[in-house]
């Protein structure tokens, strides 16, 4: 009997200043339940860049291809470290992490979306998630 090839969902790695990523995952889990293969890395004050990078490398070494990397702030150290890692690892990077993007990323990867397609979709969801609600509500029929 033919063995069905198991689709390996890409892992999600989150790099942030402080514990923002760690806490955001906890918040997302209030909505989604326990998330699988999501790893967070907190850049703490004084942390050596080598230590921060090596901790991430340890996970990337084990990850299947197409890891999706979220960073908080474009141009910040977590973002710069992620780009440096892209030289050696097959990753897609998206900045501006918010909870909507994380939720959508989990859903899309379970449905087979990966690589650049996943990153672009997730970045768009992130942007759409930012709404000026007061006016929206006021103008709603």
């Amino acid at each position, binding site marked *: 009997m033919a063995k069905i090839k198991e689709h390996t969902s890409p892992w999600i790695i989150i790099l942030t200043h402080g514990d923002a990523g760690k806490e955001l995952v906890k918040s997302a889990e209030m909505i989604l339940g326990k998330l699988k293969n999501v790893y967070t890395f907190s850049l703490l*004050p*004084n*942390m050596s860049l080598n230590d921060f990078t090596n901790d991430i490398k340890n996970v990337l070494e084990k990850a299947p291809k197409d890891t999706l990397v979220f960073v908080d*702030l474009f141009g*910040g*150290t977590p*973002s*710069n470290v992620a780009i*440096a890692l892209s*030289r050696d690892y097959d990753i897609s990077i998206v900045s501006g992490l918010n909870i909507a993007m994380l939720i959508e990323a989990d859903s899309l990867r379970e449905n087979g979306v990966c690589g650049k397609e996943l990153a672009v979709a997730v970045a768009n969801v992130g942007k759409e998630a930012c709404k000026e609600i007061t006016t929206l509500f006021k103008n709603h029929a």
Partner: protein
Amino acid sequence: MADISLIRIDYRLIHGQVITKWMKRTNAQRIEVIDDKLYQDPFMSKIYIMAAPPGVKVEMLTIKDAVDSWNKNKMGDGKLLVLFQNVSNAFSAWEKGFPISKIQIGGLGSAPGRKVVYNQITLNKEDADILTEMEKGGVEVFFQTVPEDKPAELQKILKKFKF
């Protein structure tokens, strides 16, 4: 003549604090990263060049280029923010003639042999000695991570932490 608004030593070079706080405080239009090693690495250079805030130009220079540019035409016009990744690079540039009257130590990371002396800044004996030499040579050395921090003088730090 370029107005060097700030000369900063920061192991993370262009990052959060620099983009959000120091650019606003100095109104610098250009960021000059002086680093021989980084200059040789176009991939890493590109990361920092891309990290610049909108409207700000980032330039990667070797120490020699920086000194030559200063000697030739005082690095052009406008306000500059100069970044060094570590103390020895700053010292090397200063020795070779790059003008440093004041230098801000903004961030130096942990490593074996280093201890935290102020906020997110670590020192070891080698750095402490180099900075002392620069100070003796007329450079004002102060420690400050973000503008809200009170700048701390080198001598006060060294009195507290023996190296």
